[in-house]
């Protein structure tokens, strides 16, 4: 017993030592900043000068200059392929010194990084869009992954957990350090990544699309955390497609296009607006973010009545509660809901029972009730579901474009089960032209395409299946502004051809700009139905808030 007590005491003493040491460091830091602040009006923590990076056949970066002030949040925006990630990979040493031209100065010193380890030692940490956490390890272990609290080869677990708890408190993560990463949500995982960066004494934190996979609440938390960290003197580079977020937190905004810097805006001096940024990114004025459409809305073609679905694994948990919707020919109907509101689960359960258990309710098409027990039956009855997760559930990335387009309707291009490969190429070429898929040929692997073009391939696949009802789940997620516009045009064309479109989205402007009618979904229920005229940001939010009140 006394042995344990002693160990505990020793630990407490050590912890106090560590903490006071930290404070000392922090104090020094502040002094340092103050002295410099007097010396120079503007101090840049990072200067990238004339960075040029060549890939075979492509100039990914062309004379890029980037200056980041100490303690600011600097947003980097641009379309997919504009060179944002390449630039950050140059900075973090993923592309080592010598593979690019130009120079990098960090805190006034020139940097020669041979790899990520070098840049991390200097205090530059990058958090990639795909999180680099080990799901089966604990939060504490992940925070100190590759940076273990250890004496020689022996890990000091007490120190690991204590310091992890300290860092977690700093990023506002209320969890046990021993909890496994796979058991916490994506939002919290993102916080673990930031704690991990803090453990490395980060000075410049780079976040690549940190909120892409987060719901609004988690995004909000994350952005607030960045503002907190800024107060602690941590500089931050934020790559994001979500311009409202950029405008909310960033001090400066650098816009990249085709590997070149268009301009750097200072939010405190320049007149910065979403329109101005988009103009810079796209290179032209996008007067209308949503293309026009002539509305020819016909009879009700598709109806789902009293739809109930239970969770596939957790017994007795109802995921979809008594949902009823209907769609008319030529109509675009929106289902607005946040992630976790049940929208994807609803769509997938309708699409041949791809999700859930004990599914009940009616599906009616053209006045006739359908029983759809498999995806095949759903396709044969004129349904198509374009998944929100194009990479892991939509496309076969190792296969070429033509094979992806034909996959859901191989029977249309085959005779006696033998595929007519020439016809397949012909069809793929047709969609390549119609949907303007940018690729070297239809034999190109879909994995090598940009997000927007991948989405077009996915849409081609489902248009080729010739459905009457298309369910599009977040069709523009992670796609840049220009490609979004093209996708919207495709959706409009489908509606004009008389198809019924169900558009699921968590982006309000998209829902408001595209849909003829909107269903609002929350907690697995439809909590509101609004016409085009009634629908607005306020009215939709009101539906959600009202439903929460009713539950409470």
């Amino acid at each position, binding site marked *: 017993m006394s042995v344990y007590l002693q160990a505990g005491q020793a630990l407490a003493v050590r912890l106090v030592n560590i903490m006071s040491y930290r404070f000392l460091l922090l104090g020094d830091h502040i002094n340092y900043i103050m002295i410099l602040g007097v010396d120079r009006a503007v101090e840049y923590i990072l200067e990238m000068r004339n960075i040029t990076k060549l890939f*075979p056949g492509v100039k990914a970066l062309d004379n890029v200059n980037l200056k980041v002030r100490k303690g600011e949040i600097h947003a980097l925006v641009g379309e997919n392929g504009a060179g944002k990630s390449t630039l950050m990979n140059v900075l973090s040493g993923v592309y080592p010194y010598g593979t690019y031209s130009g120079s990098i100065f960090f805190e006034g010193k020139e940097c020669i990084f041979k790899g990520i380890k070098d840049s991390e030692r200097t205090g530059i940490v990058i958090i990639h869009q795909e999180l680099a956490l080990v799901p089966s390890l604990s939060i504490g272990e992940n925070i100190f992954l590759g940076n273990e609290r250890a004496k020689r080869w022996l890990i000091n677990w007490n120190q690991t957990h204590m310091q992890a708890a300290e860092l977690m408190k700093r990023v506002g993560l209320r969890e046990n350090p021993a909890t496994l990463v796979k058991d916490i949500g994506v939002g919290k995982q993102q916080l673990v990544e930031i704690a991990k960066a803090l453990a490395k004494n980060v000075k410049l934190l780079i976040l690549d699309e940190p909120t892409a996979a987060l719901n609004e609440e988690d995004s909000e938390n994350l952005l607030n955390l960045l503002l907190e960290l800024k107060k602690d003197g941590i500089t931050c580079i934020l790559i994001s497609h979500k311009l409202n977020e950029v405008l909310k937190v960033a001090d400066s905004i650098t816009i990249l296009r085709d590997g070149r810097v268009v301009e750097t805006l200072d939010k405190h001096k320049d007149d910065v607006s979403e329109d101005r940024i988009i103009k810079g990114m796209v290179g032209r004025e996008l007067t209308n973010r949503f293309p026009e459409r002539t509305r020819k809305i016909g009879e009700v073609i598709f109806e789902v009545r009293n739809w109930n679905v239970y969770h596939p694994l957790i017994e007795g948990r109802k995921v979809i509660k008594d949902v009823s919707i209907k769609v008319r020919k030529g109509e675009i109907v929106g289902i607005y809901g946040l992630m976790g509101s049940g929208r994807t689960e609803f769509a997938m359960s309708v*699409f*041949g029972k*791809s999700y859930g258990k004990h599914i009940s309710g009616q599906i009616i098409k053209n006045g006739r009730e359908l029983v759809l027990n*498999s*995806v*095949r039956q*759903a*396709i044969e009855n004129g349904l198509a*579901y374009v*998944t929100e997760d194009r990479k*892991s*559930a*939509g*496309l*076969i*990335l*190792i*296969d070429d474009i033509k*094979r992806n387009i034909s*996959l*859901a309707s*191989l*029977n249309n291009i*085959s005779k006696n*089960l*033998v*595929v007519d*490969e*020439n*016809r397949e*190429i*012909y069809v793929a070429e047709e969609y390549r032209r119609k949907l303007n898929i940018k690729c070297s040929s239809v034999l190109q692997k879909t994995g*090598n395409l940009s997000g927007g073009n991948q989405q077009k391939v996915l849409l081609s*696949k489902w248009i080729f299946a010739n459905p009457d009802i298309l369910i599009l789940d977040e069709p523009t997620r992670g796609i840049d502004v220009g490609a979004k516009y093209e996708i919207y045009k495709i959706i409009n064309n489908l509606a004009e051809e008389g198809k019924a479109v169900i558009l699921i989205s968590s982006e309000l402007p998209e829902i408001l700009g595209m849909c003829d009618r909107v269903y609002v979904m929350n907690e697995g229920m439809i909590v509101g139905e609004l016409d085009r005229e009634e629908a607005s940001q306020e009215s939709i939010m009101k539906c959600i808030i009202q439903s929460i009140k009713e539950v409470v």
Partner: protein
Amino acid sequence: MQTIKDVFKNNVRQYAMFIALIVISIFFQILTDGILLLPQNVTNLVLQNSYVLILAIGMTLCILSGGNIDLSVGSVSAFIGAVAGTLIINMKMDVGLAIFICLLIGIAIGVWQGFWIAYLRIPAFIVTLAGMLMFRGLTIAMLKGLTLSPFPEKFQQISAGFIPDMFGGFGISLNITALMVGAIISVIYVIFQFKKRAEQKRYGFEVITMPLFIMKIILVLIGINLFAYWLAAYKGLPIILVLIGILVFVYSFFTTKTVPGRYIYAMGGNEKAAKLSGINTNKVLFFTYVNMAFLAAVAGIVFAARLNAASPQAGINFELDAIAACFIGGASAYGGIGTVTGSIIGALVMGVLNNGMSIMGVGSDMQMIIKGFVLLVAVAFDVLSKNRARA
């Protein structure tokens, strides 16, 4: 029009192993003082490797469906051999009926393993590892640890027989039937190539230039007829070669041209996407394993016929030979990439290595080391060239 450079650039990886096979063959041809490619040895090479070729076909489908392998094929082959031995030697059953029963049992074994793998989703590695133990045990139990021998002449013919020469005589020592078969295949090949070209032109696709097209056809024709001549110079067409030829043709066609074949690739490429495209992936996986066990039964019969015995030791390490053949032939360990012809070439590379080294009197210890190294290098080459293609 595509030039020779384009054709080469687009197909380097595809043909790399084929070129390697030719290089290895020439290499051993020189080292063995010309013994390797003697007509008699070429025939031998085919007979020796018949069971690996058959198993590699089935294994390709398993690997395609998602990087799954089947470890039980060696034991299943042995078990089927034991069944054949018991039925034919002990029970004096008619050979045709016995083979039919053996194939049915093979399918039943596939249903058993496929059920666990596809519907209960127990990892294939584990189900077939269990199968490997179970069927080895059943083999030993059935044979009571002893070797059953000999099989009747009719059964041995499967692996040792040749297609009788219908045009014998004429005073030449060549087997006319073999030459005829070569010629017929040549004609069919030429017709199909021209048809394909016409079709592609009809759709307005790019085709290779005419001289290049003719050159390609001539090269293939020389290959086919040279091989036929080689066989004709010995005893003619082995029955087993005809069987393998049919299997390779049928399975190549199945995997590359048919809808269910596509489903296997799609499942291996991305199972979730395949499911959401209306493919019943459970069914695909199930039939892949039923098919594998069926082919293992075929291989078991072929091997028993060649050995002229049902041995409790038969089929040991067959699964490893088949798996190695697939990976040397360019199959991806993650599924979705690979071809039947590739695996056949992989099996032949291993076969030539075995045969060549045996002729040279290299010990089996060194043979294993060299074969292991070749497997490693072949797959490394594949992975590295893919990485380069991506960058």
